[in-house]
């Protein structure tokens, strides 16, 4: 069972969250110009990374906010938690461990992240949050 540090609520049980798949999958600039193969690759093809993987999570029974998480797919080590719409943080070594991210996450609640981030999240969040 994972203990996930939600940027708004602090560490919570994995069962309160829903997985949102790979993060940073940009919507095509001109979807109408794509051929079927390119469109299918945008829709269905995702990285299958071994190691640090940036993914989206929704705290569905908590604050109902989306956030990005950098998780090691081998060790399940949560290396970073960061806001929707921000670029993936650099992963240099085992610097950011879970207690560190939890403390920066608490700060982000008071500074930037507390606003209704509909503009940034709507671009990256999926159409329907599958239950």
């Amino acid at each position, binding site marked *: 069972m994972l203990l996930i540090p939600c940027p708004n609520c602090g560490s919570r*049980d994995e*069962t309160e969250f829903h997985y949102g798949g790979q993060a940073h999958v940009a919507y095509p600039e001109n979807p109408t110009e794509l051929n079927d193969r390119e469109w299918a690759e945008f829709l269905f093809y995702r990285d299958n990374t071994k190691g640090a993987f940036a993914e989206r999570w929704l705290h569905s*029974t*908590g604050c109902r*906010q989306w956030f990005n998480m950098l998780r090691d797919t081998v060790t399940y080590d949560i290396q970073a938690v960061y806001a929707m719409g921000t670029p993936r943080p650099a992963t240099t070594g085992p610097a950011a461990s879970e207690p560190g991210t939890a403390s920066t996450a608490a700060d982000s609640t008071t500074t930037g992240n*507390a606003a*209704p981030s509909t503009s940034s999240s709507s671009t990256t969040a999926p159409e329907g949050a599958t239950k």
Partner: protein
Amino acid sequence: MANTAAINGINGLRDIRRSPASHLAAALEAGSIQGTVVLNEGPFQTMAGVRVDPRSEEGARIAAVTGGLPARCGDVAGTDRVSVLWLGPSEFLVVAPEEAHDSLGGDLIGSLVAALGEAPGQVVDLSANRTTFELSGPRARAALEKGCALDLHPRSFTVGTALNTEIGNIPVVLQKTGEESFRLFPRASFADFLGRWLLDAMREFASPEVP
């Protein structure tokens, strides 16, 4: 006095209103162990779901009506009549006694709607969305811990805070109202399940403790 008259009959609808766990009333009473852990369903409450940016102008207007908006997870703001629970960075649950509802002579929903005005956000009357369970007693925390992954120890879950979490695998807003008393807000459709789940969790405390 006018409020009491209004409660007694708004076209008779108030009289036929049934709370979501009313059919469990006898079971809750039978399953409660006085002095150990007691469960009952609370009275109807007026609740409003508010979505507003708390740092905006409209957020300040809403805060003026409710007596403040909570700033972070766990916080409960408001006055002694109205409490505002933090559900998300821009989402709040306003809980007040039933007679605060506009149809019973109060003005809570109407004044919230007026405070929001045309600004971005929403105020929704959720009075029928959730019911209230009141769980109290020295073993209340032990009963909750059977199905809640949060740290409910008093050092981390203090009196006067409320958290949106899962209890018995269903989403519940859990408020700590006293050292040994909790308020649970499940959605109405989960009331039967949560009531029976809590009764089951409480059952062992009726027997003497096995050392």
